[in-house]
């Protein structure tokens, strides 16, 4: 009667259940390409791409570029978290901060950062700095907005209880408002992770000598379509893994949350 006995088998099936759509897409891709429905130059068969990916991966170069990209994402995202959460909290708790920051952000965030790449290159260097700066600039938005909304709707009874217990405003911010905002912050983090990946690959496509985006643009320039798709598949896998990690972290951190 209890599901406990059948759990391992069920677990395995559940895992599969969450991946079958990806397998379906791969199958459709393979069929379309093999059947000649699409130009294989534009869309080579999935199987060939996967074999190619395996070769690139075992060769080692791909892993190097992957590590470069991930380093940039980690640094940019880390900075965005470190800056975005305090900014969002501050904006939610101080009317003055809100009034000053709101228009500045509303003007800054729609700026297409790709146009700032030349400037970023000169200011932050051609290696990691420029990409980290761009990731930071774009990942900041979801974090600030999410933290702000989460903190704004904190139950005021919680804040008052803390105040009654003699907590300072700063302590309340970190001990009451931040935990209360965490569910929303995780939503923002999920977005920020995706945005970071997007930005780092884009920045690496425009100007970089390493990273997955660089691998992709090099393959595009030399018309090695299979390499392009190998990079694409890698990016997809990374994105999937990163998202899974955020969801796991969310589950761990938010055990108290419904």
């Amino acid at each position, binding site marked *: 009667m209890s599901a406990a006995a059948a759990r391992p088998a069920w677990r395995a099936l559940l895992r599969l259940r969450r991946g079958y759509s990806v397998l379906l897409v791969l199958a459709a891709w393979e069929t379309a390409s093999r059947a000649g429905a699409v*130009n294989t*130059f*534009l869309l080579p068969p999935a199987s060939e791409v996967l074999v190619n990916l395996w070769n690139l991966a075992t060769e080692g170069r791909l892993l190097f570029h992957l590590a470069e990209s991930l380093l940039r994402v980690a640094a940019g995202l880390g900075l965005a978290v470190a800056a975005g959460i305090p900014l969002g909290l501050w904006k939610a708790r101080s009317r003055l901060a809100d009034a000053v920051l709101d228009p500045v952000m509303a003007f800054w965030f729609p700026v297409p950062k790709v146009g700032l*790449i*030349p400037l970023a*290159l*000169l200011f932050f*260097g*051609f*290696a990691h700095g420029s990409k980290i700066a761009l990731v930071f600039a774009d990942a900041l938005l979801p974090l600030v907005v999410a933290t702000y909304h989460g903190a704004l709707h904190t139950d005021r009874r919680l804040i008052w209880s803390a105040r009654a217990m003699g907590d300072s405003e700063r302590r309340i911010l970190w001990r009451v408002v931040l935990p209360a905002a965490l569910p929303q912050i995780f939503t923002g983090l999920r977005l920020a992770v995706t945005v970071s990946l997007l930005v780092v690959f884009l920045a690496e496509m*425009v*100007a*970089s*000598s390493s990273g997955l985006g*660089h691998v992709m*643009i*090099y*393959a*595009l*320039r*030399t*018309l090695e*379509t299979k390499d392009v798709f190998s990079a694409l598949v890698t990016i997809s896998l990374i994105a999937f893994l990163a998202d899974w990690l955020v969801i796991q972290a969310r589950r761990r951190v938010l055990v108290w949350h419904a």
Partner: protein
Amino acid sequence: MKRIAAVTLVLGLVLAASGRAGAADPPVIRIGWSVPAQTQHYVMMKKPGILKHYGKAYKADWVNFPGSVAIIQAIASKNLDAGGISIVPLARTIEQKAANLKIVADMMSERKGGFQTTWVTLESSGIKTIADLKGKTMGVAGYGSTTDLLARAILRKNGIDPDRDVKRVEVPFPVMESAMRKGDIVAGELAQPFYANAKARGGIRELFTAQEVLPVLPLLVEAFTAEFMAAHPQAVKAFLEDYVTALDFARDPKNRDEVVGIVAEVSKLPRDVLATFLLTPQDYFMSPDAMPDVEAIQKTLDFLKEGGVLKTQLDAKSMVDVSLHPRAKR
């Protein structure tokens, strides 16, 4: 009643969308262009009045792309019929049978008598020869681009392994000069108009050009799909006549001011910068007869095969089709 109306409407929309509503309309050539160095195209786009056949024997739908690869992708996905394309991606396209493209006219080449992409350093850098680059950082505008392939060959020829002996970082053309003056790189490649700009500001020394490995590099050509040429030979013929007209117009010294204005308008670059080199010996070389240089193309293909960029030996003659070219000797 309603159903008939609906069916008529749908049919009408389909016909309108297919663009073949009026049989009398001349065929539309969907053609890709990019910047820089496609002066013939810019003149055709901005001065259709000087063209004899435009609107009568053909119409053109000009679409801008960020470069040759994008144009080729658009051709392969059947969204374009023609375009101004660089020779290396074109060769790779034909090698992979991604699209059946034919070179129908010359657009511009890098050779003596015209501008060649130039690798430069600062006079103060202490770099005198290519060998001095050992252990230094240099700028590449685009890994895997034609000029990058040439630079690698030249470095290797001068005893420098491009992957080990120098650090090469990707720097967009417009930032190259600043990066060099700032000291982030000691050398870098400059195309026009960035070369002219840097030269005007002074302190720049030329290191090398592609001359050393390829005396004539037919960099950009006009290409059409074989399918379109077979379906609309008259339109292509008329287009090429107009293409030559535009070339002649651009090359005529008394039109120079106007052409500089056209290029400034298209590229959005300041007119005074363009005026320093455009249509002078400091501009890319445009062959007066607009004929593709089969011999130079073959040499380029051979060079690419040798360098491993091409896996197969391609035949330039089979890639070129000048049967509709007004200045072809018949």
